[in-house]
C-alpha cells in the first residue's frame, strides 16, 4: 500500500542549528502516527515543512505517490493536509464560522455567505462527533472546544491528513480523553493523523506507530506494543532517564507557612479562593492538585505577595506577612517559580546574567552604593550556568533565545541559589521535555531534603503523585481534602478534583489525613 504521505531526506538549516537532518517519515491511510521528541528535536520544524510554512533545504515530500512542492500553506491545503498548531490559529473576536471560512470564503452576490458555511460546519461537527456552536465567538470558548474548531477548520478544507502539534499540552485530563475519542473517530472515517507530542503515556495509549526524533534526526520507528515508556524516553533523550522520582521519606519539621481562612478575589472581584486553611512544614512537599482555574493561581499570588488577600492570615516563619509585598517575603526566604515563566518569571529581552540577579541585584555583592558590580554579576552567572546546566552559548544572550526548558532552569537557578525556607512552585514543568522535567524534579526533592518547605501546584496528576508528601485537593476555591499520596489512587484524586465529596470518595475507609492546622 502506498503511504498517504511520505517524507524523504528532508534537511532544514537555521542559523546555528540543523533543525532537520535527512529526515524520513511516512504515514499510512487511517493511522495515527506519533512523532515523539524533546523540545528542539525538530518535530515542529518538520511539520512546518510539511505544511508549507518552511521550505526545506533538501529532500522531498511525496503525497499519494506523487512528488509535491509546498511553497505556502495554500499548497498544503490544496493537497489535503491540515494542521492544528500548538498555539491555536484562531481569531478570538471572530465567530467560529468566520474563523473556519477565513481564507476559503464562500460568497453569495459578492458578500460572505455566513449561513451556508455555518450549515456546513454543523454538518461536519455532526459527522465527526465534534460538538461546536458555529455562531459562538471563539474568545468565549474553552480551550478544548477551540481545538475542535481547529480540527473542523481543517476538515472544512477537506483535509485527509491532519497534523496535531502538541494537542494535549493545553488540555485538562478530561479534555484529553475527549480528544482521543475524536482522533479515533477521525481515523475510522479515513483521516490519517500525525500526532506530535513529548508525553510518553499518550503515545502508548493512542498511536499505531511511533517515530522518535532527537537533535534533528529520526532515531527510529516502533510500534507501541513492542516498547515501553522507559525505552521511548531513552530514545528521546539519548540516555537512560529516571522516570520515577527518587526520593526518601519526608522528615517534616516546624511549620514554615501557615495559612488561615484565606479569601482571595480574582480580577473580576469574584472570590477565587474561599477560605482555605493549611500549613507547609519544612522538609516536606505539599502538593496542590486541582483542575486549572479552581483558585490555584490566585492562592499562589496571595502567598507570594502579588495579590492582596481579601481576608484571612498568612504566617511565614511565625511572622504575619498577610499584606506584604514580594520583596520582604523574598528576603525572608521565599522562592517562587511562577506559573507563566515568560510573563512573570523572566524579563525575556534581558541577558541571562541579569535575569539571574533579578531578586538580589540591590544587595551586596551585586549592588554596592547604587551601582551594580558587573564582575560579581558575571561571576554569579557563570557559576549558576555551570551548576544548573543551563545550555547557552554565553550568559549574555537574551533569555528569549533559550528553549523553554533552559528558561525554566534560569528561574530555578535564581530561586534556589538564595537561602530558601519555602519554595512555591506553580506548574514548574509545564511544557517541558522529559530531560528538563527530570532535572527540575530532582532539584525540588533536593531542596526539600535540605530542609526547605515546598508548596507544589500542578495540574499534572503524575507530578503531584510523584513529588508530594501530602496532597491538598482544590475545588472551586476550597481545599476539599488533604490526603496521603501512598493511600490514595489516581482515580480517587480525579474524583476529588472533579468535586465529588471526600466522604463519597472514601466511603468511610478512613484514608483522609486531616489538615495539620
Amino acid at each position, binding site marked *: 500500500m502506498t503511504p498517504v504521505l511520505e517524507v524523504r531526506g528532508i534537511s532544514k538549516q537555521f542559523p546555528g542549528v540543523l533543525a532537520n537532518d535527512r529526515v524520513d517519515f511516512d504515514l499510512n491511510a487511517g493511522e495515527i502516527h506519533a512523532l515523539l521528541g524533546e523540545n528542539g528535536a525538530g518535530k515542529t520544524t518538520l511539520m512546518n515543512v510539511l505544511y508549507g*510554512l518552511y521550505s526545506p533545504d533538501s529532500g522531498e515530500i511525496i503525497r499519494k505517490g506523487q512528488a509535491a512542492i509546498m511553497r505556502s500553506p495554500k499548497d498544503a491545503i490544496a493537497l489535503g493536509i491540515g494542521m492544528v*498548531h500548538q498555539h491555536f490559529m484562531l481569531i478570538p473576536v471572530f465567530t467560529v464560522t468566520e474563523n473556519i471560512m477565513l481564507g476559503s470564503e464562500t460568497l453569495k452576490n459578492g458578500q460572505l455567505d455566513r449561513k451556508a458555511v455555518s450549515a456546513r460546519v454543523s454538518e461536519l461537527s455532526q459527522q465527526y462527533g465534534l460538538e461546536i456552536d458555529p455562531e459562538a465567538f471563539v474568545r468565549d470558548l474553552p480551550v478544548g472546544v477551540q481545538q475542535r474548531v481547529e480540527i473542523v477548520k481543517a476538515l472544512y478544507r477537506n483535509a485527509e491528513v491532519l497534523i496535531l502539534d502538541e494537542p494535549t499540552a493545553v488540555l485538562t485530563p478530561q479534555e484529553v480523553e475527549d480528544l482521543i475519542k475524536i482522533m479515533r473517530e477521525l481515523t475510522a472515517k479515513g483521516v490519517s493523523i500525525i500526532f506530535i507530542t513529548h508525553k510518553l503515556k499518550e503515545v502508548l495509549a493512542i498511536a499505531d506507530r511511533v517515530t522518535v526524533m532527537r537533535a534533528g534526526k529520526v532515531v527510529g520507528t516502533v510500534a507501541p506494543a513492542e516498547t515501553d515508556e522507559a525505552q521511548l524516553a531513552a530514545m528521546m533523550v539519548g540516555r537512560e532517564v529516571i522516570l520515577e522520582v527518587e526520593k526518601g521519606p519526608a522528615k517534616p519539621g516546624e511549620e514554615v507557612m501557615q495559612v488561615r481562612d484565606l479569601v482571595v478575589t480574582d480580577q473580576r472581584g469574584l472570590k477565587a479562593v474561599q477560605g482555605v486553611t493549611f500549613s507547609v512544614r519544612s522538609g516536606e512537599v505539599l502538593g496542590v492538585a486541582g483542575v486549572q482555574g479552581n483558585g490555584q493561581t490566585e492562592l499562589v499570588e496571595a502567598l507570594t505577595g502579588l495579590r492582596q488577600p481579601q481576608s484571612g492570615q498568612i504566617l511565614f516563619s511565625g511572622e504575619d506577612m498577610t499584606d506584604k509585598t514580594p520583596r520582604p517575603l523574598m528576603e525572608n526566604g521565599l522562592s517562587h517559580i511562577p506559573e507563566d515563566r515568560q510573563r512573570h518569571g523572566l524579563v525575556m529581552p534581558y541577558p541571562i546574567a541579569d535575569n539571574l540577579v533579578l531578586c538580589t541585584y540591590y544587595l551586596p555583592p551585586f549592588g554596592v552604593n547604587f551601582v551594580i558590580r558587573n564582575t560579581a554579576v558575571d561571576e554569579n552567572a557563570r557559576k549558576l550556568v555551570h551548576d544548573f546546566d543551563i545550555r547557552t552559548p554565553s550568559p549574555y544572550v537574551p533569555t528569549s533565545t533559550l528553549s523553554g526548558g533552559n528558561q525554566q532552569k534560569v528561574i530555578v537557578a535564581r530561586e534556589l541559589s538564595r537561602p530558601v525556607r519555602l519554595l512555591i512552585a506553580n506548574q514548574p514543568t509545564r511544557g517541558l521535555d522529559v530531560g528538563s522535567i527530570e532535572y527540575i524534579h530532582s532539584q525540588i526533592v533536593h531542596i526539600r531534603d535540605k530542609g526547605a518547605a515546598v508548596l507544589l501546584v500542578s495540574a499534572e496528576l503524575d507530578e503531584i503523585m510523584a513529588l508530594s508528601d501530602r496532597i491538598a485537593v482544590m475545588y472551586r476555591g476550597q481545599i476539599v481534602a488533604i490526603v496521603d499520596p501512598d493511600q490514595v489512587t489516581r482515580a480517587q484524586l480525579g474524583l476529588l478534583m472533579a468535586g465529588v465529596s471526600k466522604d463519597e470518595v472514601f466511603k468511610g475507609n478512613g484514608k483522609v489525613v486531616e489538615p495539620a492546622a
Partner: protein
Amino acid sequence: MEYRRLGFIALIIIVLIGVVVLIGGGQISPAVIIVSMLATTIAVATPLTLGALCGIYCERAGVVNIGIEGMMLAAAFFGWFGAIYMNTILEMSPLPSLIVGVLIAMLTGGLLGLLHAVLSVTYKVDQIIGGTVINILAIGVSGFLNRQLFFESGSVFGGQIPHAPGVLPRLQVPFLVDIPVFGKVFEQQPIAITAIILVVVTHFVLFRTRWGLRTRAVGEHPRAADTVGINVFRMRYANVIIGGLIAGLGGAYFTLESVPSFEPLMTNGRGFIALAAMIFGNWSPFGAWAAALVFGAAQALQINLQFFRELIPPQWAFLQQSYVVGLVPYILTMLILTGIIGRTTPPAADGIAYEK
C-alpha cells in the same frame, strides 16, 4: 457601539447646538440656527471622517498610522497646486481643474500610504516613527514648495500668486433637499457627500466582504491568516494605500472644497483629531463618523458664534474670545482619549510588524 457612547455623542452635539440657539435665538429663528449648525457640522467633520476612515483601513489591517495629518497636509498642497497648474498654465476650465486637483490629492495620499507601508510592513520600522516621518516630511515639503513655487521670482507662476479656480460647487442630495426647513442640511459639497458614502461603503467592506474578513484577520492575528494562505504583507500594503487615498481626499477638502487657498500647517491637527475619532468610535466606520460629528459640532460652534458675538450676554463674555471656543475640539479630544467615556479595544495586532 454601545448606547452609553452614542448617548454621550448625542448629548455633546445637542449641548453645542443649544449654546448657539440660546445666544442667537432672540435674533434669528432657532430652526434656522439648528439647520445652519447641522450643515456646518457635517461639512467641517469631513476631513475628520475621512482621516478616521484612513485610520480604520490601516489599523484594522494591523498598521498604526499617525501620519494621517501629514498625508492630509501634503495632499492639500499638491491637490491645490495641481488645480492651479491646470487652470493657469494649461488653461483648463475651473471645474475640471478642481477635479484633477482632487485626483492629485488622492494620489499624494496614496503615495504617502505606500511609503508608510514600505517602512512599516517591509522594513518593520516602528510604526509611530514611520508616521512621524510622514508628518515631518509633509510639513517640510509643503512649506518649502509653497514658498518656492509661488513666492520666488522666476518660479512657475513668476512670483505672483495666481488666481485660484475656486472651490467645488455645492450639490443637492436628491429628495432630501426637499424636506422643509431641514432640506438645507443636505446641500453639501461633493467631498462631504463622498465622505458619508465612504462610511457606509467601509462598513460594508469590513463586515460583509471577503476583503474585510481578511483585513480584520490580518490585524487581529496575522499568523492565523498566514496559515490559511492569506498573504499578510499584501493585505497590509493594500489597506494602507487605500487609507492613504482616503486621507488624500480628506486633504483635498482643505484647499479645494473649504477655501481656495493653501497655507502652511493648515490641517492644524485635524489628522490627530481624526485618530481620536477613530479610537472613540472603536475602530468602526459609523462609530468614527459619529465621533467626527462631535468634533465637527465643536468647530461649528466656533464658526456660528462669530455671527452673534455682540449678542453674547456679559456674564458669558469669555465666549467672545474666539480662541476660547476654538479650544473646545481639543479639550474634547483629551477628554475622550482619557477613556472616561469607556474604553475601546484596538485590533490585537495593531502596530506590530509581522515576521514570517
